[in-house]
């Protein structure tokens, strides 16, 4: 064991203490994320799986194409082409993957006890959490863009074999890809907020699944109040925002309420915003 020699020092903090910079916290949180092998696995494997799910859907349409009726073939572009670019089931899986990755970045730090070491090193708790949120949101946005972009490219390449693929310049295609990509950071931030609130890994995961996936599947659009509640959920907002073609709008049955696009964008913004505010508030106040 090599002893490191210290000059005897005064009982005061180092005179040359560098200023507290936010970018040091960003760098630390970046390092914290990528020094865990589980991050690489979670992001890599889930990303591959999501792209594969979409490609598989497009492949099914490619193979079934000869059996499709003339009317289906005629209506395939753009609604069905886009539907293959990011399917509903893939969206649900992205929602859960991103929500859980976000949740574990916060809840994992609490459940291991590391949070006490972290906050003893950085007593400015809100700054630290803001850095963590910034890093995770940025990484999940990039992840969403890669997954949604790659899915679009692969699925349309497959469909182009049947002359049913569309290019990204097709009206609404960019919005479609963007809305699906943003589902990742939106879900991740909701997960982070729940993680900060609940602080137990398993309970946080269950809550993420219930709130993001189960609740929207229990609600219908048959009553005004129910529809309002339903439209205020992340999954429904994504489903509304990605439907660009008129043929994808639900049937105009009486009493059937349709979410608005502007309202759905608001839902997309408000959920992560509330999650961030909740996280920053509780983390500042609570004992550890």
């Amino acid at each position, binding site marked *: *064991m*090599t*002893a*490191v020699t*210290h000059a*005897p*020092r*005064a*009982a*005061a*903090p*180092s005179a040359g*203490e*560098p200023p*507290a*910079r936010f970018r*040091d*916290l960003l*760098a*630390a949180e970046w*390092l*914290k994320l990528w*020094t*865990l*092998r*589980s991050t690489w696995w979670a992001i890599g494997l889930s990303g591959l799986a999501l792209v594969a799910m979409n490609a598989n859907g497009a492949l099914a349409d490619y193979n079934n194409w000869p059996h499709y009726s003339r009317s289906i073939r005629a209506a395939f572009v753009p609604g069905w082409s886009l539907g293959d670019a990011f399917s509903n089931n893939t969206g649900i899986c992205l929602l859960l993957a991103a929500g859980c990755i976000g949740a574990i970045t916060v809840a*994992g*730090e609490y459940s*291991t*006890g*590391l*949070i*006490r*070491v*972290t*906050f*003893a*090193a*950085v*007593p*400015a708790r809100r*700054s*630290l959490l803001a850095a963590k949120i910034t890093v995770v949101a940025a990484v999940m946005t990039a992840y969403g863009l890669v997954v949604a972009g790659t899915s679009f490219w692969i699925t349309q390449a497959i469909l182009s074999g049947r002359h049913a693929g569309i290019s990204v310049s097709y009206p609404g295609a960019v919005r479609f890809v963007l809305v699906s990509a943003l589902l990742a950071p939106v879900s991740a931030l909701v997960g982070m907020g729940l993680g900060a609130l609940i602080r137990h890994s398993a309970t946080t995961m269950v809550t993420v699944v219930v709130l993001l996936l189960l609740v929207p599947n229990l609600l219908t659009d048959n009553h005004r109040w129910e529809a309002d509640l339903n439209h205020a959920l992340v999954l429904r907002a994504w489903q509304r925002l990605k439907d660009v073609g008129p043929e994808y709008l639900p049937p105009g049955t009486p009493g059937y309420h349709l979410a608005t696009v502007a309202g759905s964008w608001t839902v997309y913004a408000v959920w992560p915003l509330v999650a961030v505010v909740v996280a920053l508030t509780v983390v500042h106040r609570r*004992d*550890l």
Partner: protein
Amino acid sequence: MIEVNQLTKRYGRTTAVNNLTFTVRPGRVTGFLGPNGAGKSTTLRMILGLNQPTSGSVTVLGHRFRDHPRGLRHIGGLLDAGDVHGGRSARAHLAVLARSNAIPSARVEEVLREVGLAEAARRRVGGFSLGMKQRLGIAAALLGDPPVLLFDEPLNGLDPEGVLWVRGLFRRLAREGRTVLVSSHMMREMENTADQLVVIGRGELIADEPLAEFAARGTRLSVTVRTPDAGVLTGLLTAEGAVVRPDGEGGLSVAGLDAARIGELAFEHRILLRELATRTASLEEAFMELTADSVEYLAGDPR
């Protein structure tokens, strides 16, 4: 210098720390002693700003610790060696902490070598023994070269070589003019480590004095006597003003007379002595005696 001033912490109806006031000075190792559940860890967490006091205050070098945006250059703290993510390597754990406080990464290698973890730096912490985790926690506390260091039960899980090393380290840190506070529930651990003792029980201050003074409290002399004529001798000693009790092992425990006088009395009355030994109560006994009324979780019969 740590100043704890009328510190109180309540959790619902439970009072973990009650009106605690003491000062920890630089340049020596201060032992922070108390039975399990006495409120040591709660106090250390309040010093580190992790828990908010119900009332009272703690300052470190005149400042509330939580008012510093970054902490590692002010206090190095090891609260629980298990407070790490098992998936990270030792080096990564320290690198993240160093980065958040703008500490150069060369310092990470330095502290790894200092605590003897240089070889294990790349291994994941999840596979570490408790002793290795303690070393990692000590490394983290040293990262910022801070003037104040807190260690909660740092000797747990260390091998004898590790214990010796830690004691040497604490002494060196104190010699360098730093404030060093080390908690323990074992008096024996403090005997060779601390210069000053702060003893608490049930969240209240019991003693705050130099180790030597504290030890003196417990040196009630008693003499163990073994003799076939226990009855006769007891009568003689009691007549001389001593307090005699059976020591439970077939001998007598005599307080109030020294061994020389007891020997004289036995000789004068032709009583055979098989053993005559002076016993001084150990620090451990002094501690037990002082905290007997304030033990939170007592095994066996309730008193």
